């Protein structure tokens, strides 16, 4: 069986950044396995700008951001196999894959880097009643049709869900001549970033209807209309508030799910809150030598932070590969008041780390507190905290002790 030092599963922004940093840290035997024909992942279809403001100090499109990493990966001579589907990963880090060029492959790795990204929730997950006509797409699928394949998806569109990709697609379809009749969001607040509400909806007079959902889908071959209704505080449609909206296209932007089938095959334990792996401060999963970063770990808002997280992963993975182990992480990081989830979930108490979290609901003028027993590790005032915006904080080792769990709260 072929043996590799590090195998990276997925050649999107996380995988590319991890590969480059591993190489910089002196790990030379790296292999990237990518399902698509080209490297770059979802960035290839994200042609809007706004990427790279943190990383490069300029506003790039997704393909440009990706190409900067791809060029460096190629220049560094890092091997990547595209058109390659990974079928299985075992807990002892045997990777089984198939590719058009290489056929069936079994590879042994010292470290496996999970950077598979995420996928979209679909109509099936919503269980919306009605017929099953053509014209219903997830936002990312519509984005791929329009931006990669030059296929227009429809003319009269309704968007269900206010996730960022749905907002971006509302603008994109409007620019391409479609009429976007409205965005319907079941929650009482938007799930996308405020700037996307502004520049994708308000700029084009596209109405956003909060506390609304689609309750019926109509049409035989092609979608002809959807029925929307107002929802109560428990997301239940209120009878008598239904309204039929003629349309030929329904775009779903109703959430992203980390793609972890391979992680489960490797017996990596998942956190039900993030739907990604439980990781420690080294971004190592519960299986030694298997690491995870990017959207496969927790869904990010900004690619700049995906790259940073993957680089932190690579620093740890390089250390693991050189020393054969990393400091044990016995302390738990708990999500306290108003905190939906935290990454990492375990720490050693001896090292700096980046804490990522999201709040459960929109909050104003609150204080974020990181506590370890009676000791306040960090306290920060926040003017606003939105579920749509991931919060990240640098935690310094000198503020930590080695003998108590950590709790993060926002109140």
């Amino acid at each position, binding site marked *: 069986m072929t043996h590799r030092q590090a195998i990276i599963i997925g050649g999107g922004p996380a995988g590319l950044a991890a590969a480059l940093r591993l190489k910089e840290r002196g790990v030379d035997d790296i292999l990237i396995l990518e399902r698509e024909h080209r490297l770059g992942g979802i960035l*290839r279809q994200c*042609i809007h*700008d706004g990427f790279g403001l943190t990383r490069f100090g300029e506003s790039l499109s997704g393909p440009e951001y990706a190409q900067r990493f791809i060029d460096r990966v190629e220049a560094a001579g890092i091997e990547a196999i595209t058109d390659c589907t990974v079928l299985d990963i075992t807990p002892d880090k045997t990777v089984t894959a198939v590719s058009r060029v290489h056929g069936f492959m079994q590879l042994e790795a010292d470290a496996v880097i999970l950077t598979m990204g995420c996928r979209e929730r679909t109509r099936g997950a919503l269980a919306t009643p009605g017929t099953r006509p053509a014209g219903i797409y997830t936002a990312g699928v519509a984005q791929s049709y329009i931006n990669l394949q*030059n296929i227009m998806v429809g003319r009269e569109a309704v968007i269900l869900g206010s996730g960022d990709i749905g907002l971006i697609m509302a603008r994109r379809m409007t620019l*391409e001549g479609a009429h976007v009749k409205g965005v319907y969001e079941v929650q009482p607040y938007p799930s996308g970033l405020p700037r996307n509400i502004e520049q994708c909806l*308000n700029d084009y007079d596209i109405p956003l209807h909060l506390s609304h959902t689609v309750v019926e889908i109509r049409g035989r071959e092609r979608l002809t209309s959807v029925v929307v209704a107002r929802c109560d505080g428990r997301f239940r449609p209120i009878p008598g508030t239904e309204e039929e909206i003629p349309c030929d296209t329904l775009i779903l932007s109703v959430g992203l799910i980390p793609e972890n089938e391979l992680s489960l095959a490797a017996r990596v334990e998942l956190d039900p809150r993030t739907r990604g792996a439980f990781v420690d401060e080294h971004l190592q999963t519960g299986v030694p030598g298997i690491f995870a970063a990017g959207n496969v770990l927790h869904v990010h808002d900004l690619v700049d932070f995906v790259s940073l997280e993957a680089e932190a992963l690579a620093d740890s993975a390089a250390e693991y590969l050189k020393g054969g182990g990393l400091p044990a992480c016995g302390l738990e990081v708990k999500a306290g008041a108003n905190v939906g989830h935290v990454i990492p979930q375990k720490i050693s108490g001896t090292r700096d780390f980046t804490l990522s979290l999201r709040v459960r609901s929109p909050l104003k003028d609150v204080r974020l507190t990181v506590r370890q027993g009676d000791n306040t590790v960090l306290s920060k005032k926040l003017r606003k905290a939105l579920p749509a915006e991931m919060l990240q904080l640098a935690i310094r080792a000198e503020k930590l002790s080695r003998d108590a769990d950590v709790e993060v709260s926002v109140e």
Partner: protein
Amino acid sequence: MKRVFTCVVCPNGCEIEADYEGADVRAVTGNLCPKGRDYVVQELVDPRRTIATSVRVTGGDQPLASVRLTGAIPKARIFDAMRAINARTLAAPAAIGDVVIHDLMGLGCDVIVTRNVPKV
């Protein structure tokens, strides 16, 4: 007059409360950086945005090259810009940074390619 603006300059998306009279901005609060104030002034005088779209490519390994503007244009000219860009077709190869339209409609910015499309 008072109005709340959502700044679109960066992902912070600051909610900026502005006190203004015509184009004279007297006070702004809520912005994390000076760009927020500039954004409010620009919004009051001449709101501008960039756009990103695609241009058809012939003879390439993909049917489209994505493009973007190198600067913001008046909001009211966005659909004119789309028409001007849609009238163009490129012949492969196309490379990131290639100028598709120089000085778009005399507005002082270029339309540039943002994806490499090799020739087949």
